[in-house]
């Protein structure tokens, strides 16, 4: 929780634009006020590890975002630039205010603070607002763009901000049309002219699953079995926005397996029913059956289980939700005798934690990009 938040309105107008120097001056005076305030006997530490640009819309819950950013700021203190954009409004509007977020460092009496500039833009000013953002970036530390919306394609604002950012954070679980949006996202990342570095919060949600699946083959005795996998079954619950489509998480997981294990999509099998979709894949001479099955045991858009089996069911490796989704169960079964499994707590990370994790990595995530590309091939 912030110990103290100072807020100061900026005098701006669409015709004059934002006075960058004035914003910087205002932030400086807020720092010196914070340093001399009665509450800060031991001084204030300004910490800046990154710039975070948050693109959001007026429909977003501002207090929820505020709470989330407080928590993110604890792990990644820095400058946050919030852009609240109303594209549908007719009237041109440009508002801004600056604030600092401070919290007390345990037992030391010291405060650690980050700073925030909020800009509200609507109507025609949306096109030009990027020019007010870029000069406000703190030099020498990375720039992250958290696009709290479906990525806009051929959009000036997105393009300008994406060009500036070292990494763009999106969330494919919030896509309205998952299949179409995933395809477009894959295409955008593949575009060699753009060189976008994208993080997907939904990919972060798969980390536990990927870790547990990968850990089966950390065991040297199981390693050879990885080459004889011939069936993959992924059970998921479709996203609320598109009940007929495969959840992005399931597609990303399948894409990840096929890119890591060099499986190539051959064709889609005729559907047995609307609750499942099956694909034939090839790895050299061997065939792999990839089946997506709709389940009900998880929340919408989530995975319920993944099972990989070798020929004739000689060995199978399973990860699945357990106890109403609060735990994950793993099972490695070799023949009739050997069965090793365990039950682990499924720690659902908060949105703030997920975002914080993404902010720790500035470079490109090639494994994600390859998984997305393969996943998108399944829904061409």
């Amino acid at each position: 929780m912030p110990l103290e938040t100072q807020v100061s309105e900026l005098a701006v107008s669409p015709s004059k634009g934002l006075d960058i120097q004035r914003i910087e001056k205002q932030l400086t005076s807020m720092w010196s006020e914070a340093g001399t305030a009665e509450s800060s006997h031991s001084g204030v530490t300004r910490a800046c590890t990154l710039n975070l640009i948050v693109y959001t819309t007026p429909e977003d819950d501002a207090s929820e975002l505020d709470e989330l950013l407080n928590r993110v700021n604890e792990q990644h203190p820095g400058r946050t630039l919030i852009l609240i954009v109303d594209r549908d409004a007719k009237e041109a509007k440009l508002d801004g205010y600056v604030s600092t977020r401070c919290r007390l460092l345990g037992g030391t009496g010291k405060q650690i603070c980050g700073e925030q500039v909020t800009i509200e833009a609507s109507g025609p000013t949306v096109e030009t607002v990027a020019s007010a953002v870029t000069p406000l970036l703190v030099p020498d530390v990375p720039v992250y763009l958290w696009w709290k919306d479906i990525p806009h394609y051929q959009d000036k604002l997105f393009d300008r901000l994406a060009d500036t950012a070292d990494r763009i954070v999106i969330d494919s679980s919030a896509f309205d049309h998952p299949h179409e949006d995933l395809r477009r996202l894959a295409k955008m990342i593949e575009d060699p002219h753009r060189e976008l570095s994208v993080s997907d919060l939904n990919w972060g949600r798969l980390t536990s699953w990927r870790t547990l699946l990968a850990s089966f083959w950390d065991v040297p005795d199981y390693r050879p079995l990885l080459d004889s996998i011939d069936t993959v079954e992924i059970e998921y619950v479709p996203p609320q926005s598109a009940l007929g489509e495969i959840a992005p998480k399931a597609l990303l997981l399948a894409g990840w397996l096929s890119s890591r294990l060099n499986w190539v999509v051959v064709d889609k099998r005729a559907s047995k029913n609307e609750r499942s979709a099956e694909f034939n894949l090839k790895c050299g001479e061997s065939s792999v059956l990839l089946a997506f099955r709709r389940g009900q045991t998880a929340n919408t858009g989530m995975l319920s289980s993944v099972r990989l089996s070798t020929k004739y069911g000689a060995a199978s490796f399973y990860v699945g939700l357990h106890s109403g989704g609060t735990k994950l169960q793993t099972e490695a079964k070799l023949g009739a005798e050997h069965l090793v499994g365990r039950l682990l707590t499924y720690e659902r990370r908060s949105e703030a934690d997920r975002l914080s994790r993404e902010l720790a990595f500035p470079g490109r995530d090639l494994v994600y990009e390859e998984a997305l590309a393969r996943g998108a091939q399944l829904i061409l």
Partner: protein
Amino acid sequence: MESTAIKENENPLRVGLRLEKTADPCTVIIFGASGDLTKRKLVPALYRLVQQRLLPAEFAIVGLARTEMSDDEFRSKMKEAVEQFSETKQVDPEVWDSFGQGVYYRSTDIGSTADFQKLGDLLDRIDRERGTGGNRLFYLSVAPRFYAQAVEQLGRAGLTKAKAGRWVRVIIEKPFGTNLESARLLNNQILQHLDELQIYRIDHYLGKETVQNLLAFRFANGIFEPLWNRQYIDHVQLTNAEAVGVEGRGGYYEGAGVVRDMIQNHVFQVLSLVAMEPPAHLGAEAVRDEKIKVMTAAREFTPERVKSDCVRGQYGSGSSGGKPVPGYREEEGVVSDSATETYAMLTMYFDNWRWAGVPFYLRSGKRLPKRVTEIAIQFREAPHQLFGAGIMEQVTPNQLIIRIQPDEGITLRFAAKVPGQITQIRDVNMDFRYGSSFGVQLAEAYERLLLDCILGDSTLYARKDMTERGWELVMPILEQWAENKREVPFPNYEAGTWGPAAANELIERRGRPWRRP
């Protein structure tokens, strides 16, 4: 662009996973399973490693102690321990059951060959049933007098030899010997059954994040290493202070004292990381080679040096945290005329090109005002003073402080002009705190060290030569102090103060005050 190509034998699904390291299937066998360390540190650390998915499902723990107990009794004791001593607090019964299935207990007499044969049979059974693959980590958390015997029994039962492609490792707790002779003897005894590469002598200080960060700080930054020598550094102060007394361990402490308990192991380990040359690479042997190299350059303590460069102390009654506390001699298990030191200050020099003439002041003690471990690097004064003496009154030379506990972090102290019409210069601190810059919970030292051992990384463990060198250096001090027990009238510092006056006088005579941490 970084490649995602797979190297030979690499698990293709592991590529790009942000999970740093993965461990082989294995069984951890704890000697002294009914003891405090097992319940406070070891089992909670292993439970957390499992929950963090850092250990595979093919994992088991076998507890060994003399006490008669069933597997289930041991499991329920360990469950209580995890709830009491780990952050996890409330352990989910189902999750615990899944973990507990891999927890076993055997009542074992270290003197009984038959018990070790039975242990071998049990471990083979666990390998078959739980797929632990024959990899074994024996953790000796027993009284030091049993170390050699336990290893000998393991050796005789054929348990120190690994099957092809598997490993057997042994972690040995501190203290490693009580003097040079006993440390050498112990090394010789255990090396009859084990290879040095199988031996992991634990020093939990090395598991702390800031100690590891010392390597990153010194060798990943371009700006500090050029200053890290006699030309720019005036002296180094290493403070290792505890606020507590002997906490009911008076009996043990009487035979130990702070030099044996803290300095020859923990303090020397940290010191060697501060003073060593850059290693060729970060491999365990390369780092440990450099550590021993610099400790070999440490100036020996001659009788004259013990007199002039070392100070010992023992606390008398006083107060700690606002409440009255007894003196050391009034503690349980301590004799009323005890000559055991609870405080020691050592002045060290490294006779090499980098450090010639730079004193390293070390102090370690119990019942000091607060618990703190820090290294303060004091730089030389600016070569020419532009500002007058009055202006510089409040200014001390630049200091770099590396805090190891609590509140791990780094502070750089430099002078800055106080804003205003008058020229006035004051010290300001630039702080880096782990907690604030990364906001992450730092792993418990035991978690890190146990995982490292399972992964076969011995960088953070003490090698044979280092343990012996530690003893070699302190033996003249211990011997001289033992011979002249009554030379210093004990107690000579009040509990809750920064040690005996002689320690302040020694450093101040050389024009350098102790830093108040």
